[in-house]
C-alpha cells in the first residue's frame, strides 16, 4: 500500500482474524487481513455487506470483545497492540484517539438524550472539564461541522434533527476529542444522495483542517474515488485487492473489483453501455466456498480454482498493488482490456482466448 515510506504507519493491522462461534458453526467474519493506515491519509475498505469490513473496524475499537469472538493477529496503533490492551486502557483510546462514525445516525444517537448532552458526555469521558466548558466545546464542534445555530441545537433531541444534520452531529461527536484516526462505517449510506456529497465534502474538509487519518468503509466505489488515497477490496472476510485509488480504478486486477466497477453507471459510458451486475450472492461465512472464495460467482473461474486458495501477492511491476487471484497476469490484463471496451464477461473470456485455460 502506498504511503510515506520510512514513517511508521499510524495503524497497522496484521493477519487479523475474527471468528464468532454460533450454533450453526463458526462464522469466519475476518480471515487474516493486513493493512496500514498512515497519518493524515485515507484508506477506503470496499466490499458487499457480509464481507467482514465492519467487523474488522469494530474489532479495532475492541467492540467485538465480549461477544464471544475469537480474535487473533495484531492491531498496532502507534506501536501499541490494541488486541492485548486491557479494557481500561482500550477505553482511553476509544472515542479519544480513535473515533468512529456509524451508518445510521438516527439509531446511533441515543433517542432520550439531547444532542448536546451526548457530545458533552463524549468529552467528559476523556477530559476532566466542567460541564459548562464542555458545552462550549460542543457548540463549537457543531458549528465546525456546519450545523446552523449550534447554541440552540445542542438543546434539541436527535429526532428533531434531519438525517444529514444527525450525521453531522455524529461526526462532531466523533471529532470532539481530536482523534488521530476516524473510522467511518458507511457514513453516507443512510442519507439522501445530495446529503451524501455534503457529508463527504465535510469529512474531506475536516481532514484537511484537523489532519486525522480516515478509514472509510463502504460498498460504494464512488465514495472511495471521492475520498480515499488507498483502497482495500474485501470479499468473504479477506482482502482480495489493495492498491492506491488511482491504480485500482485504472488497472483493477481482481474479477470481483471488475464486477464492482462494471456494476456502477458512469457518465462517460453512455446509455448503450450495459451495467454488469455480479451474479449470485455473497457466500455464507460459515461454509465458505472451497479454493478461491469468489470462484462460484467468478465468470472467469477455471476448474482448479475450486481447489487452490489464492494468496494476496504483488502485481508484477507494481509492488504496492496486491491481488489474490489465480488467473495469470496476462490473462487478467487481456480480460480487463476487453471489459473496459464494453464487452460482457462471456465475450471478454472468448476474445481473450481464455475459454479453455486461464494461464
Amino acid at each position, binding site marked *: 500500500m502506498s504511503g510515506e515510506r520510512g514513517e511508521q504507519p499510524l495503524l497497522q493491522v496484521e493477519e487479523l482474524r475474527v471468528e464468532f462461534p454460533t450454533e450453526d458453526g463458526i462464522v469466519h467474519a475476518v480471515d487474516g487481513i493486513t493493512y496500514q493506515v498512515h497519518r493524515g491519509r485515507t484508506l477506503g475498505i470496499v466490499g458487499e455487506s457480509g464481507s467482514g469490513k465492519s467487523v474488522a473496524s469494530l474489532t479495532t475499537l475492541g467492540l467485538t470483545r465480549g461477544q464471544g469472538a475469537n480474535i487473533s493477529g495484531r492491531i498496532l496503533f502507534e506501536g501499541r497492540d490494541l488486541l492485548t490492551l486491557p479494557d481500561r486502557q482500550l477505553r482511553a483510546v476509544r472515542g479519544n484517539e480513535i473515533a468512529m462514525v*456509524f451508518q445510521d445516525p438516527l*439509531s*446511533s444517537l441515543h433517542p432520550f438524550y439531547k444532542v448536546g448532552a451526548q457530545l458533552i458526555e463524549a468529552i467528559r469521558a476523556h477530559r476532566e472539564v466542567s460541564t459548562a466548558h464542555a458545552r462550549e466545546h460542543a457548540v463549537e464542534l457543531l458549528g465546525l461541522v456546519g450545523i446552523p445555530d449550534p447554541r440552540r441545537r445542542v438543546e434539541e433531541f436527535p429526532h428533531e434533527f434531519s438525517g444529514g444534520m444527525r450525521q453531522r452531529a455524529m461526526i462532531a461527536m466523533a471529532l470532539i476529542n481530536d482523534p488521530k484516526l476516524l473510522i467511518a462505517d458507511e457514513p453516507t449510506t443512510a442519507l439522501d444522495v445530495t446529503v451524501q456529497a455534503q457529508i463527504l465534502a465535510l469529512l474531506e474538509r475536516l481532514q484537511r483542517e484537523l489532519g486525522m487519518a480516515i478509514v472509510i468503509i463502504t460498498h460504494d466505489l464512488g465514495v472511495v474515488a471521492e475520498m480515499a488515497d488507498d483502497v482495500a477490496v474485501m470479499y468473504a472476510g479477506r482482502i482480495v485487492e489493495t492498491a492506491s485509488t488511482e491504480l485500482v480504478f485504472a488497472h483493477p486486477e481482481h474479477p470481483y473489483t471488475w464486477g464492482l466497477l462494471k456494476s456502477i453507471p458512469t457518465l462517460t459510458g453512455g446509455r448503450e453501455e450495459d451495467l454488469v451486475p455480479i451474479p449470485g450472492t455473497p457466500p455464507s461465512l460459515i461454509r465458505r466456498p472451497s479454493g478461491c472464495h469468489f470462484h462460484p460467482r467468478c465468470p472467469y473461474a477455471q476448474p482448479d480454482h475450486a481447489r487452490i486458495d489464492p494468496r494476496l501477492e504483488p502485481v508484477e511491476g507494481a509492488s504496492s498493488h496486491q491481488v489474490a487471484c489465480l488467473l495469470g497476469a496476462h490473462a487478467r490484463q487481456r480480460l480487463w482490456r476487453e471489459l473496459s471496451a464494453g464487452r460482457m464477461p462471456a465475450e471478454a473470456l472468448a476474445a481473450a482466448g481464455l475459454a479453455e485455460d486461464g494461464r
Partner: protein
Amino acid sequence: MINYIVRRLLWGLVLLIAVTALIFILFRVLPTADPATLRAGRLQSPKIIAEIRADLGLDKSLPAQFWIYLKGILLHFNLGYSYYSGASVKSLLFDRLPATVSLVLGGAVVWVTAGMTVGILSALRPRSRRDRASMGGALLLVSAPEYWLGLIVLYLFAADIGQLRIFPGSGSYVPLTTDPVKWFTSLLLPWFVVAAGNAAIYARLMRSSLIETMGQDYIRTARAKGLSERRVVMHHGVRAAINPILTILALDVGVLLGSAVLVETVFNIPGIGRLNYDAITHADFPIIQGTVLMAALFIIVANILVDIAYAYLDPRVRYS
C-alpha cells in the same frame, strides 16, 4: 399536553360513570341474597323487611335508585351507607385505604428493586448459569399463588405459628402513625408475598427489554465513545429499557390498590381488599360498589399517569 390531560380526565369521568352503572346493574340483576332480609337478621317479619327496604331505598325503581346514588356521588361525594352496619362507605374506604396503600406501595418498592436488579444482572450475561438460575426461580415464583405463598411463609416464619418465629404473623398490622417500627415489621411478610410474583415478572421483563436495548446502535455508539461499561449499561441501556417497566408498574399498582384481596385476607390486614371481601359475604352493595368504583378510579388515574410519564421519559412522544 395540558389539553391532552384535561381530555383524558374528562374521559376518565365518563368511564367512571359507566363503571358505576355497570356494577349497579350487575349486582341488582344477578341473583344474590336480599340485603333487607340479611339486615333483618332473626326479625324476619314481612313488615320489618318492608320497613328496612324503604329505609335503604330498595323499594324505589332501579333507575331511581341509580339516580339517587349517582347524585350522591357527584354532588356530595357521598358513596352511600353500608346496608349491614349503616356506616358511611366513604369513611370506611378512607379508614381502610392507608393499610392497602402501605401494603401495595411497600410491596412495589420491593418487587421493583428485586425485579430490576435480577433482570439487569441476567441481561448482562444471557444464558449464563446466573441467568438460568434466576429465570428458573422467577418461573417458580410466578407460578406460586399468593394465598398459598402467604400460608407457607406464615407457617415458616410467623411469630405465633411459624417453625422459625421471626416475623410478626397474621393480624399484626398497626397503622404507621401508631407505631412506625411495628408497622414496618408487621408488613415484611405481606410485602414479600405481594412482591414475589411481581418481582419475577419484572425481572423477566427487565431482562428481555435490556437485552433488546443492549443490541441497539446507540449502545455501540456509547461504547465507541469510551464510556465505562457501567455507564453504558446504567445510563444508556437501563434508561431506555425501563419504559415498559414503568408502564406496567403504574397499572399494577393501580390494579392492586383496588384488589389486594388475597394477601389482605391471608394476613388479616384491614385494607380495601379485606373490606370488599367482607362486604361480598354480607351482600353489602354500597360497600362493594364503593370499593369497585375506587379500584376503577385507581386504574384510570394510573393509566393517565403512565401517559404523562411516557411523554416525560421519551422525548419523541408528544400528545396533541
